[in-house]
């Protein structure tokens, strides 16, 4: 009666449980959110998200996430290169440490970064005499988002570098390319899918980030307020419709990024096959 999907037992029960769990935990709450925002109507929705304060928060959230992801793309590549290609004292320890932003709770990271970069903090006080404020400004937000995305690029580029066929480099060298040319024309293009995937992952993570940013941002409307904070502010004011509209706009971006990342990962795997 039922189409057999394989010879092993247990398909219906595991599939059924999986779908039930997903529906209860993910699909039902998400549909409630989308339906609620639909009650606003298209005009109402658009009115909420084009208010200047909201637009400023979008600019900060997405702009700082982009800056952080770009920094991570550059330095993540550097760190992955150094970890795979070179040897130095303490390399294994440092390699394990790269995952700290994954493991450290975001609130802890948030207060640590805020303290570190405040004008009396260890790093902040180096910049204070120059008149540069880091904490409580958009620069602080960029720093926090760089921290949070740090492992993504490193961990997506590392496996590709480890599997890299050095024969290609040797061939280039024997054909007369210098090291920089080899890097530019052979190594970098091969790493590009993984680099882009890591960049997209870091960007996606940074866009929604709350805990690490909330302490170091100034949270001043129009200047240093991130979109998640605005959602919470609206919730506290019982503006459920507004909070929902903002949440849906962020969800749409999240889904778009998720599709892009899946596509990038497929491209990356096709390249390596």
């Amino acid at each position, binding site marked *: 009666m039922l189409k057999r999907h394989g010879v092993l037992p247990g398909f219906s029960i595991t599939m059924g449980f999986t779908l039930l769990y997903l529906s209860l935990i993910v699909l039902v709450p998400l549909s409630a959110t989308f339906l609620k925002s639909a009650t606003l109507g298209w005009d109402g929705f658009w009115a909420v998200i084009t208010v200047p304060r909201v637009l400023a928060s979008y600019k900060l959230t997405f702009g700082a996430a982009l800056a952080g992801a770009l920094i991570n793309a550059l330095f993540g590549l550097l760190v992955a290169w150094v970890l795979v290609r070179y040897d130095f004292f303490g390399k294994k320890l440092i390699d394990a440490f790269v995952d700290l932003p994954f493991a450290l709770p975001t609130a802890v990271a948030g*207060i640590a*970064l805020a303290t570190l970069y405040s004008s009396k903090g260890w790093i902040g006080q180096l910049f204070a005499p120059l008149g540069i404020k880091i904490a409580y400004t958009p620069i602080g937000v960029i720093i926090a988002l760089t921290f949070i995305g740090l492992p993504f690029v490193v961990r997506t580029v590392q496996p590709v570098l*480890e599997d890299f066929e050095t024969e290609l480099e040797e061939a280039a060298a024997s054909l007369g390319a210098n090291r920089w040319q080899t890097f530019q024309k052979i190594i970098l293009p091969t790493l590009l899918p993984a680099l882009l995937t890591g960049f997209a992952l870091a960007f996606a993570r940074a866009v*929604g980030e709350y805990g690490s940013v909330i302490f170091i941002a100034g949270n001043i409307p129009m200047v240093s307020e991130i979109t998640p904070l605005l959602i919470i502010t609206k919730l506290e004011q019982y503006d459920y419709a507004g909070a929902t509209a903002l949440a849906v706009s962020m969800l749409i971006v999240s889904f778009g*990024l998720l599709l892009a990342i899946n596509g990038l990962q497929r491209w990356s795997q096709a390249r390596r096959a």
Partner: protein
Amino acid sequence: MSSIALPSPIDRTRTAGRIHREPALIRWLLIALALVFLFGFLFLPLAVVFSQALSKGWAAYGAALIEPNALSAIWLTVLAAATAVPLNLVFGIAAAWAIAKFEFSGKSLLMTLIDLPFSVSPVVSGLIYVLLFGLQGWLGPWLQAHDIKLIFAVPGIVLATIFVTFPFVARELIPLMQAQGTEEEEAAIVLGATGWQTFWRVTLPNVKWGLLYGVILCNARAMGEFGAVSVVSGHIRGMTNTVPLHVEILYNEYNSAAAFAVASVLALLALVTLAAKSFVEWRMQRP
């Protein structure tokens, strides 16, 4: 040259000659640059946590941890993790079994759904439950009529924790079980084992390190979750505050030594997570 160390299996560039290596100066420059970056972004924040935690001495450190609100926050965090992790473990195993051992259409849609919490902002993750179970939500009036409190109470916190952590075990197990294929399980079935026996005696031992890895990550995230829990909790001290929320409250009251003292517990948990992660990765690579 005598500077060439023993070649390791992965590092083939060493034994292949010098024509395609960067000059030593460039190498050391790159290493130094990478280390400075990592020092500034990883080590310093961690150092700040412990330095600030102990800034008022060990007595104040201890007092901050055994204070009643801190203890109830720790209890709530442990409760949330102890509920979310086993449930997500069962889900992860079920989902991985269905996805890895069978063929059906819609598999990649299912996997994308499982990946969803990773791309959703924590605040939005909490919001969707407030919209469903809050007073103004769909089920709000029904819950109120039956005097069930979910939002701004412990069950809501557990729910939000489950949402943000459920992919971890599944994501570890699915590629692992897909790579292992179905031959061993099929052999067991042919030899007369029941489904359960096959699972316990064939599949589970094969995936045990991946499973442990997923559980470690799931637990770390469950205990550290901040944004989602912040939205669904009521921030009621002594009742609906987890450890990260408690840290936030202490910090916002300018009680930074106590805030960092409690935060240092989470930081130690993070270090233990990293160590466990490295150990499991090492075991997974052994034949």
